[in-house]
């Protein structure tokens, strides 16, 4: 259905994603020029999984290119139309990030494997009998695969505000799920700082959530841990800031927090309700 829709959109659209007067250095890019940067600093993305360690952020790349219609922006390949000066629509593909929590840099994958299946939740009951473990470690479940998102996004904006609505579907048939996101971003400047704040709400389908956070026979024979995940709403808020030091170097930072929603947090695989993503450092733009 999605591919047919994208094809119709491609064939019927004669609009050019033309350049508008875009002045904010933080969110604007010159057409037909690669924007390549690398940032050094300290930060992490927390991991909500049981025994899941935070994902360290020491070096951050920033790679983007925008042509007349096509673009590449930090892992997202897309094709954009601009039906009028206040809105754009794009189709795109990108890697789904849900799998990152299950990635290889978990310490037990690097050092020694552990036999732990609990996260301190299997505390003895007052009667002396142990409750069945309520949690299961990310080390003890079946592998989750990466998936590819195919999406459609429409943006409406003025000088400093941007509203967007995004629909994403699993392009590889890994989980056959989808998600939909409504997002608002406000860009502003304060003294030498360029800042952007954003708020968003995302609906993730049960297929998507269940594939990554559901527990079934594929993971453990212990039926008490089996969990069939339902759909969920996730809320995100964040702040991005940037101050130039000279032509190439600048200070940069970002803070973002996401509430995971009950569909995720009710899983025995998940021990945290929020994911935070922070980074502070200096960036060099070539």
């Amino acid at each position, binding site marked *: 259905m999605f591919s047919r829709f994208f094809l119709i959109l491609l064939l019927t659209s004669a609009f050019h994603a033309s350049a508008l007067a875009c002045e904010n250095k933080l969110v*604007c890019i010159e*057409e*037909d020029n690669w924007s390549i940067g690398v940032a050094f600093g300290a930060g992490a993305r927390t991991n909500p999984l049981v025994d899941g360690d935070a994902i360290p952020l020491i070096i951050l*790349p920033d790679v*983007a290119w925008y042509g007349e219609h096509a*673009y590449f922006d*930090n892992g997202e390949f897309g094709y954009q139309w601009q039906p009028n000066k206040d809105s754009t629509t*794009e189709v795109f593909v990108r890697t789904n990030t849900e799998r990152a929590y299950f990635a290889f840099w978990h310490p037990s994958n690097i050092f020694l494997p552990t036999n732990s299946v609990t996260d301190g939740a299997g505390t003895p009951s007052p009667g002396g009998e142990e409750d069945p473990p309520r949690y299961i470690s990310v080390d003890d479940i079946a592998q989750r695969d990466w998936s590819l998102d195919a999406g459609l996004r429409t943006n409406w904006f003025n000088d400093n505000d941007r509203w967007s609505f995004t629909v994403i579907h699993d392009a590889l048939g890994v989980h056959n799920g989808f998600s939909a996101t409504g997002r608002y971003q406000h860009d502003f400047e304060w003294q030498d700082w360029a800042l952007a704040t954003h708020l968003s709400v995302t609906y993730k389908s049960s297929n998507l959530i269940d594939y990554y956070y559901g527990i079934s026979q594929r993971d453990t024979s212990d039926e008490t841990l089996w969990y069939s995940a339902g759909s969920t709403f996730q809320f995100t808020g964040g702040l991005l800031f940037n101050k130039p030091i000279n032509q190439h170097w600048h200070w*940069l930072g970002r803070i973002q927090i996401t509430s995971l929603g009950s569909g995720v947090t009710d899983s025995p695989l998940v021990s945290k309700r929020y994911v935070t993503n922070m980074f502070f450092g200096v960036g060099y733009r070539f």
Partner: protein
Amino acid sequence: MRILLLTILLLLCLPSFAKEKSPALFSAFPNECITTRKGEICILPITLTYPEMSSSEHCLHINNRILGCWSPDKLPTDLELELDSDSTLTLKSEDDKKAPSVMLKVKYRQASTHRRRVRNPWSLF
């Protein structure tokens, strides 16, 4: 008194009348091309004026790309150039050490070719 003032005025003006007519310089008119946006080819019809030249063959170059060579009396006075960015038109000859040039500028109606990114910078992870 009036005669004296008129005489002084004439004497003051005399140097400018006496000055020799300055030799023509290598020039192009117009020297600016306006197009819609960066990346589009801008077609610029120009009229060229040449300085006094030796009788040897002279060549016109645009950004070091040769357009053609002519004897001085056959050099084109009207040209149509296709420019994709600011360019330098140079008149060169084997005899003349000097190679006069003119800058041809390309300007865009669309003040900014900047676009809003769909993702925030540094958002890969």
